[in-house]
């Protein structure tokens, strides 16, 4: 039908002869980390592309890229190293848009522990989440000349940051947009007031040069190669998603409200903080949002091959093949968005100031 005309100006779904159903698998629960997709649903960006997108939340044992490879969903979000590991294990999945251009992982510690760089981890209890989210820590340790198995005590963190606040662990893994906010929302029993950024030291893996690529949109390699309709859907999906992210960049408050209305559990100020921090990971995007930067890709792949974990194994045993990512889709998607006058670079992006309330409320 006519729906494949990329220059459709009308955003009215009525213009579509047919709508394509699309399932997107998130890594985790509804929160502002995925605000762009929720915004795209809410604002009708997907509908304008004749897509009917349903967003599936993640679970502890749901590995999104496996859901994708099994054909249970059409697209999945995943961190790059983990997805590459699945690819190495036979899952034919392809990175078609690198939404987060930077890593948002931190290692947070109380000021008095004096942990300002990975070298200071030596002899400390170092928290991490496990579940494949710990490789940046290993990379940083390796880079600092420390042996993960001997020089530090690695401790898996619970769902919350209580272990850090209680002093069980000296430095906790935290995402800028989530767990870091949680400690800032907590009350310092000594003062009776919320903790402030001044109470903590923060090591940023991105700044330490061991950041790995995180949230990306993955598609089925097999279907991309054989199914033109799917490929077209992918393009539209990426386009509308980026449009959603652009919306969130321009109106973080509206975006946070959308996420809260979708049933996210952490509070409103937390979601606003989160969208603001996530924006920092996406914008500005020099080559256009979603473009995969070859340098960052290679660095991620290299770290994934070289960093040994506690068991002495690495994420990847060989370099990922060239088909593991493609900029073809995102390029076409950006072209659609250009036609819609959407700013896909965000060069003038400036984060806002967010005040976290107690408990994130």
């Amino acid at each position, binding site marked *: 039908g006519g729906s494949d005309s990329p220059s459709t100006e009308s955003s009215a779904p009525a213009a579509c002869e047919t709508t394509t159903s699309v399932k997107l698998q998130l890594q985790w629960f509804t929160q502002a980390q995925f605000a762009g997709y929720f915004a795209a649903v809410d604002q009708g960006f997907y509908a304008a592309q004749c897509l009917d997108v349903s967003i599936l939340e993640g679970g502890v044992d749901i590995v999104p890229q496996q859901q994708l490879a099994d054909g249970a969903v059409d697209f999945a979000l995943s961190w790059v190293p983990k997805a590459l590991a699945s690819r190495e294990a036979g899952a034919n999945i392809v990175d078609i848009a690198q939404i987060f251009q930077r890593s948002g992982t931190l290692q947070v510690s109380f000021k008095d522990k004096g942990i300002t760089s990975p070298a200071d981890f030596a002899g400390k209890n170092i928290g991490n989440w496990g579940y494949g989210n710990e490789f940046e820590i290993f990379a940083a340790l390796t880079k600092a000349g420390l042996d993960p198995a001997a020089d530090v005590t690695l401790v898996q963190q619970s769902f919350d940051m209580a272990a850090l606040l209680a002093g069980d662990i000296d430095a906790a893994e935290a995402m800028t947009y989530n767990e870091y906010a*949680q400690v800032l929302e907590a009350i310092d029993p000594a003062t009776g007031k919320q903790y402030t950024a001044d109470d903590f030291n923060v090591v940023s893996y991105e700044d330490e040069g061991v950041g790995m690529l995180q949230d990306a949109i993955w598609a089925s390699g097999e279907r991309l190669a054989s199914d033109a309709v799917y490929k077209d859907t992918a393009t539209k999906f990426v386009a509308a998603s980026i449009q959603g992210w652009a919306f969130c960049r321009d109106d973080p408050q509206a975006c946070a409200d959308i996420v809260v209305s979708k049933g996210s559990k952490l509070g409103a100020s937390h979601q606003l903080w989160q969208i603001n921090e996530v924006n920092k990971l996406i914008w500005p995007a020099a080559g256009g949002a979603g473009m995969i930067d070859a340098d960052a890709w290679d660095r991620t792949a290299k770290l994934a091959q070289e960093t040994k974990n506690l068991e002495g194994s690495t994420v990847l045993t060989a370099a990922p093949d060239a088909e593991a990512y493609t900029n073809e889709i995102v390029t076409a998607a950006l072209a659609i968005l250009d036609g819609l006058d959407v700013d896909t670079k965000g060069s003038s992006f400036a984060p806002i100031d967010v005040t976290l309330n107690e408990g994130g409320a």
Partner: protein
Amino acid sequence: MTTVATIKKNRETVRRVRRAILFVVSLLFVAVAWELYKAVGPEAGGKIFGWKLLPRSNNNAMPHVWDMLMRYNRPELRGSDRKIWSVVLAGAWFSFRLALVGFAIGSTLGLGLSILMARFKIAERGILPYLVVSQTVPLIALAPLVVSWGGKLHIAGWTWPRWMSAAVLGAFLAFFPVAVGALKGLTSAPLASHELMDSYAASWWQTLRKLRFPAAIPFIVPSLKLAASASVIGVVVAEISTGLKGGIGRLIIEYAREATGDPAKVFTAVFGAAALGLAMSGLVTLADIYMMRNRPKEASA
């Protein structure tokens, strides 16, 4: 005569009321103990005999009982008008239905297996070790398989709903105690009764129905109690691990992430799960009372 009957009935009611009161008392007792410990226990935990066995008593680790209770009556999120108790109640109801399905599947499967094993010695030798093994396979390794294979199942227009995976995982935990307990029970009838059935040339199935099964009931009942708890756990865990929304498991993990700033919140959901377990085994207890109503009881002299 009728008055005696009424007295008896009244006595029964009195017993039930007393039991309910005792339960409340025991809850109060725990609450008081909790608060007492908070009052005297070390804020940062402590050691006995060099073991770190004393828990921390601070408000993050052990919120005040009233804080937890009050939390039920406050909105789930600021600005939302849904009180937590209604959210937890809805979640518990959702999970309860799943657990019921899991329990039904699991106990049927467990019974079936136990019958198979009671029937064929060789099956017992062949299967039992693997049933044991199956229980040591963590759900985390199974959940993705079940979700993915279930998702591919389409039988005559019926598609596998996502919640079915959770129910199946509940059944996976529930079937084992039933299989083991029922197997023991099915082989527990006295030899003399078997001889009686043999003298009637009763077939194996007849013996099963008329003798083995009724004789197994005292063993099956505790198994069913375990299965009821197990199915709740299985469902709650499966909700967490498969990302199923709407149940108490989901609430627990969502609230757990907020424990840093709102430690009382997660307890509201945890208590919800506990209540769920109580409801399930309450059902089994009712079944127990019904099934054992005609068995000889100890004289209460």
